[in-house]
């Protein structure tokens, strides 16, 4: 059972079987491609079509119901296929001698060359034989090259091979095989290609111009031939301009895509390099570690792979797309996204158990002067090179160092100083969180009245990062003082009740001296102002009463602005830096919490 369709061939109505039509169409396409470089190609193909139509119509008139496969094959035999023309003597330009059949034949196929896989000479996928045909080199060369790359580049050759395999179609029809072998790529051919395209574009536009001309003449003679030809030449110019712009745009697009893909690769490399040291800290040894690499590779790798494939296609000029490759890539990418979501959910659940704390009292020797000094311990812990998790996490050799330490300074209920350390952690279960909190190593040191606080604490390298944190509470008895080193103030995170004090405002410029010295009174904190500052203060006391205070929103910057221009200039830049760092820190710590 076959479907019969009606076609219009050279203005003749021909009933033809569906399959026969398919053969005829392919045949005519191959002829068009074959003659496309010939002058008057359209005329030649038109004549042939017209002849075929005549023969077919003759058949119908003699009583055939429709044109069958056999009829089409018969006409193909009598007309000849492009492969047969190769052997025919008449198909070369008169006067030029042809050294061989293949050469003369090469003149008539399009100068464009496309990269196809050569299924006829394949060993695996036909990629190497296709490359061989494309570059006119023995495919063995490429086979050896791929073998070397496969060993030398950690399987890079294999990957490249598969990319090419997926990205390129196999040359199955005769026309595709012609394109695969193509012509030698040289300057003349490139020029010819461009000219050919320009010509076809121009002829289309010329037709359009003619239509416009016919239209104008048909509508009324008042436009006359001048107007017609003016319009025609206008369209011709427009066509050239459009063709030029289109070509330029295409090249530009290709370059941009190439650039994006390179940047993407670099970003991916940096991203994975940054993640590498903390991978084991964040992900547990089971499912999460197993999921991590597939998720990362698929989510980032697949789009890059797709882009490379796209560029390869564009560069070798393949028009048709392999939809299975698209589906496969889409599926793999979706799989990567699913892995990522799974991983994210799993990791989030690892932080789900509430914060579990472990208390630890530090035995402090009461300072004889009644003044406790808080300083950052001298250690090599600096967090500024690699900021992960708000700069709180760093991996050094065999330990992970966490810098998430906060200080809370309060009034003591007793008449002595006391220091309490609270280690806390999150975890999947309460038990896990407890274990992790207990694992934290943290030791304060006291020398006379100075309390040294380490800037970070360590957890074992094979342990997990689950937002471990340390909070140190310093209790100051009434009537005693506490001095906070400026370095310590900047490094540690201070609790709200301390921060809200006007004299601790980081935006303030009073702090040219390197410490904050405050005394605990019955009714709250009182700051001991250094000598010189006190003098200035007394001069501006009236101003202070209006401006100085207290709410967290209001920056108490006025006293200094009034105090001295010189001072302001000196500290202006540091203030800006501090303001910026303060803003960043508070923003990120809000997000982190």
């Amino acid at each position, binding site marked *: 059972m076959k479907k019969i369709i009606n076609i219009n061939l*050279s*203005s*003749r109505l021909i009933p033809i079987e569906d399959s026969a039509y398919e053969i005829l169409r392919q045949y005519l396409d191959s*002829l068009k491609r074959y*003659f496309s470089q*010939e*002058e*008057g190609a359209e*005329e*030649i193909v038109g*004549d*042939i079509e*017209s*002849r075929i139509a*005549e023969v077919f*119509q*003759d058949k119908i*008139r003699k009583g055939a119901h429709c044109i069958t496969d056999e009829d089409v094959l018969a006409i193909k035999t*009598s*007309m*000849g*296929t492009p492969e*047969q*023309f190769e*052997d*025919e*003597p*008449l*198909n*070369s*330009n*008169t006067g030029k*001698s*042809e050294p*061989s*059949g293949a050469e003369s034949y090469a003149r008539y196929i399009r100068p464009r060359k496309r990269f196809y896989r050569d299924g006829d000479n394949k060993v695996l996928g036909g990629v190497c034989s296709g490359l061989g045909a494309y570059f006119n080199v023995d495919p063995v060369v490429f086979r050896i090259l791929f073998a070397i790359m496969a060993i030398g580049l950690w399987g890079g050759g294999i990957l490249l091979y598969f990319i090419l395999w997926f990205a390129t179609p196999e040359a199955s029809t005769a026309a595709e095989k012609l394109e695969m072998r193509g012509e030698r790529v040289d300057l003349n051919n490139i020029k010819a290609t461009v000219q050919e395209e320009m010509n076809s574009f121009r002829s289309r536009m010329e037709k359009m111009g003619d239509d416009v001309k016919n239209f104008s003449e048909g509508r009324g003679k008042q436009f006359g031939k001048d107007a017609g030809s003016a319009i025609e030449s206008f369209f011709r110019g427009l066509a050239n301009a459009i063709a030029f712009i289109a070509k330029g745009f295409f090249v530009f697009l290709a370059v941009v895509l190439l650039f994006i893909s390179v940047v993407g690769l670099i970003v991916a490399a940096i991203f994975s390099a940054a993640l590498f040291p903390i991978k084991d800290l964040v992900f547990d040894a089971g499912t999460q570690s197993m999921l991590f690499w597939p998720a990362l590779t698929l989510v980032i790798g697949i789009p890059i792979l797709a882009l490379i494939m796209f560029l390869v296609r564009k560069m070798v000029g393949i028009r048709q797309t392999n939809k299975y490759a698209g589906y496969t890539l889409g599926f793999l990418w979706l799989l990567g996204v699913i892995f990522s979501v799974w991983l994210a959910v799993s990791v989030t659940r690892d932080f789900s158990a509430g914060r579990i704390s472990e208390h630890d009292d530090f035995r402090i020797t009461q300072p004889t002067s009644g003044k406790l000094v808080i300083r950052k311990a001298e250690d090599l812990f600096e967090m500024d090179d690699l900021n992960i998790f708000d700069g709180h996490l760093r991996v050094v050799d065999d330990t992970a160092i966490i810098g998430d330490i906060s200080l809370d300074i309060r009034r003591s209920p007793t008449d002595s100083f006391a220091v309490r350390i609270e280690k806390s952690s999150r975890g999947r279960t309460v038990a896990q969180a407890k274990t992790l909190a207990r694992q934290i190593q943290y030791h304060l040191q006291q020398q006379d009245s100075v309390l040294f606080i380490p800037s970070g604490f360590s957890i074992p390298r094979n342990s997990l990062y689950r937002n471990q944190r340390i909070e140190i509470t310093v209790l100051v008895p009434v009537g005693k003082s506490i001095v906070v080193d400026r370095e310590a103030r900047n490094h540690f995170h201070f609790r709200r009740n301390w921060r809200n004090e006007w004299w601790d405002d980081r935006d303030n410029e009073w702090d040219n001296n390197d410490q904050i010295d405050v005394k605990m009174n019955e009714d709250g904190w009182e700051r001991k102002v250094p000598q010189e500052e006190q003098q200035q203060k007394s001069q501006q006391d009236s101003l202070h009463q209006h401006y100085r205070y207290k709410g967290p929103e209001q920056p108490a910057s006025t006293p200094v602005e009034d105090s001295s221009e010189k001072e302001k200039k000196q500290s202006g830049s540091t203030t800006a830096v501090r303001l910026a760092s303060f803003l960043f820190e508070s923003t990120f710590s809000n997000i982190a919490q």
Partner: protein
Amino acid sequence: MNIDNTQSQMRKGVLEFCILSIIKQGEAYPSDIIEKMKEAKLDILEGTLYPLLTRLKNAELLTYRWVESSSGPPRKYFSMTEKGEAFYLDLEATWNELANAVHQLTQQNNTIQ
């Protein structure tokens, strides 16, 4: 040395001359030309005839007109231009020279053997 190649080179020059001679006898339709060539046992694919005719027409050696046919749309009938006539005469002269020369040489060959 490829025998096919040599043969096709030989045929190439001759075919053009033959086609022109058929058209010289009067207006001809491409399938008529094919028929006549077949009668003379000089087979040619139709698919190669059309490009050749177009090429000769573009070289202004041939011209054509549309002739109404009994069976459907008009057909192209080719005839020779003045330029074509001159071209044909040149070819004919060359052919005769060549034929004589070849004949003479091959005869000599035969007599030596």
